């Protein structure tokens, strides 16, 4: 790549950083046996169940794997819609 293009695009990211980022994701799924596809499916089912009881905005729901040492946990952030209340 010519040098002016290099300057335009900024320096190439170091390969060690890429290795670390890729490994982080791979290890999370290796450890839990939970594929990204299944995580998405679970999220949709959770939204469906929770929506039966409280009013939530599906677009605002975040469910992800978090890591503390070798412990994995599933962290869900499910904000309720303003004025949400029991439907019955």
């Amino acid at each position, binding site marked *: 790549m010519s040098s002016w293009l290099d300057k335009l695009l900024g320096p190439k990211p*170091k*390969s*060690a*950083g890429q*290795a*670390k980022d*890729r*490994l*982080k994701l*791979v*290890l999370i799924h*290796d*450890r839990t046996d939970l594929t990204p596809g299944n995580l998405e499916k679970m999220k949709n089912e959770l939204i469906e169940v929770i929506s039966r009881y409280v009013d939530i905005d599906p677009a605002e729901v975040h469910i992800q794997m978090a*890591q503390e*040492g*070798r412990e994995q946990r599933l962290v869900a952030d499910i904000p309720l819609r303003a004025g949400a209340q029991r439907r019955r």
Partner: protein
Amino acid sequence: MSATVITISSGKGGVGKTTTTANLAVALALNNQKVVCIDGDIGLRNLDVVMGLENRIVYDVVDVVEGRCRLRQAMIRDKRVPDLYLIPAAQTRDKSAISPSDMVRLCDDLRAEFDWILIDCPAGIERGFRNALAPADMVIVVTNPEVSAVRDADRIIGLVDAEEKGPARLIINRLNPSMVKRGDMLTPDDVLELLAIELIGIVPEDENVIMSTNRGQPVVFDGKSRAGQAYKNIAGRLRGEKVPFMDLEEKDGFLHRISRLFKSGGD
């Protein structure tokens, strides 16, 4: 005396398990420890050639388990150090020739006479790994600072935990300090953050390892080798000594800069 059984594993092949086993064994024996190592890789034995003892094999571990010889007859003494023995793997059989309970029994028979029993675990997570794990008091996981080795190490660490043999300790082998410096190799901190286990040693990449293995002389015998020194440090840590981690950037250290200063001044 009751030996500590250490299983040296990695998941991925080719990261340096056998080299690590041979060198830790010699380093411990050089400190007057009584050591026996067992090659757990039945069908693909290699600890014998790495230690330089291949010409002295008569019986192997399968002969012991199947009762064709006494345990003592299968133990090859390494005459270069005071108290080091090798029990070789069988070459013409496979991993199913031995069961995890055979390995437990074998180690129990050896415990009274030794300080350390080192088991060189085969690559993979099947029978050979189960055999090597069964008698372990401690598991060392060897990895290289690269994606496939780290991923497989993580798998092994998880399996070791699941078998309640953890926490495993980590050796990062073949670290290339200049690649780390320019950002093209995972740093020890990166690897530790990913794997989240205790580090017991970092072994720098060192041509002397291949040269000494060519000769059947574990690199620990080479007083000048950096990898050899790293293995000696690990052996010290296993014995409970507080050995600081090697400065892998030594060449750029204070003394080197001073000496460079003098050299350039003299030009």
